[in-house]
């Protein structure tokens, strides 16, 4: 994909909707991908993508450049996803209290990535780790961010990144052994 023009943020913040659409086309795939891996459900990932870009539009004037926009997008995508997961957890707890079958809720929650085998595999794997660990693993393994970039994006220090990655990988290894699957 062609790189974004240098003045695209300026044009978008001046009200040029075509420029804003360029920003969307360029970054939406990344935002959606992170959101989907964080939450495993297409509806949630699309909702978060929408929230993120409406927020971007409101704050266009505060971005210094394209790199600050990208860091900010990663951060807000993870934060919106964490909020959605918290809300969903509350929802599941309420459903349990009200006597719904929790198994049904569970199936509904992770309906989408089960379509392909690979997606099933990754969904199962990522469910083994906490959302905070998941964000670190995604940024490192799938987005290719360095420890420093992850720290900056999530507003945590490098040693926290390191320990979350370590715990996440330990949990993934344990799950792999337990399930006896060739992942």
């Amino acid at each position, binding site marked *: 994909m062609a790189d974004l023009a240098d003045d695209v943020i300026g044009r978008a913040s001046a009200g040029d909707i075509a420029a804003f659409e360029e920003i969307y086309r360029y970054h939406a795939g990344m935002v*959606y991908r992170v959101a989907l891996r964080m939450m495993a459900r297409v509806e949630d990932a*699309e909702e978060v*993508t929408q929230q993120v870009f*409406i927020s971007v539009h409101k704050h266009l004037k505060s971005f210094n450049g394209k790199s600050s926009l990208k860091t900010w997008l990663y951060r807000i995508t993870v934060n919106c996803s964490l909020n959605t997961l918290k809300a969903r957890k509350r929802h599941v707890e309420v459903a349990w209290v009200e006597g719904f079958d929790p198994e049904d809720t569970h199936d509904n929650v992770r309906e989408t990535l089960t379509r392909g085998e690979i997606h099933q595999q990754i969904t199962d794997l990522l469910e083994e780790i906490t959302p905070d660990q998941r964000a670190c693993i995604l940024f490192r393994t799938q987005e290719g961010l360095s420890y420093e970039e992850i720290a900056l994006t999530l507003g945590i220090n490098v040693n926290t990144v390191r320990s979350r990655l370590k715990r996440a990988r330990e949990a993934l290894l344990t799950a*792999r052994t337990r399930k006896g699957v060739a992942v």
Partner: protein
Amino acid sequence: MNCQQTQDLLLTDFLDQQTNPEQQLQVHQHLKDCSVCREQWASITAVDATLKNVPSPDGPSPYVWERIADKVQARPASWLDVVQENLAGLIEGFKPAWGYGSFVGAMLVVLVVVLPLVVQQQHQAATADREYLLQLVYADDKNAGDGDVSDSGFVVDHLL
């Protein structure tokens, strides 16, 4: 370097290529001599490969952009946005020191801002009522041809 130290590095810096040359040499040396850690390394790289080899999803449906475009075009920045943003910023600002107190802080600010407005509004309403009654009483006095506004004012205050 013992097994624990080695495996800590295998799970983090070594896998992520963040080790310095000296650490790298030590890890390689340990792996050469230790079959347990070699096996662990094979598992770690297998899991990492699984995560890395997942194909990217197709991307959001076209409706997502349509909804975003509708919202950002239909709703230019309003005073409500400004209030929301400032309130969010305020809550964010309180977070490190206050934790859940941020909510209390925001509520206090709302009280400080809104309460005077409410009080002022009630005062204005009371003043309007007073003037209205004053008019009635004053008109009666005028009809009587012997008006004393200050006395009438006292009466009105008493009524309110």
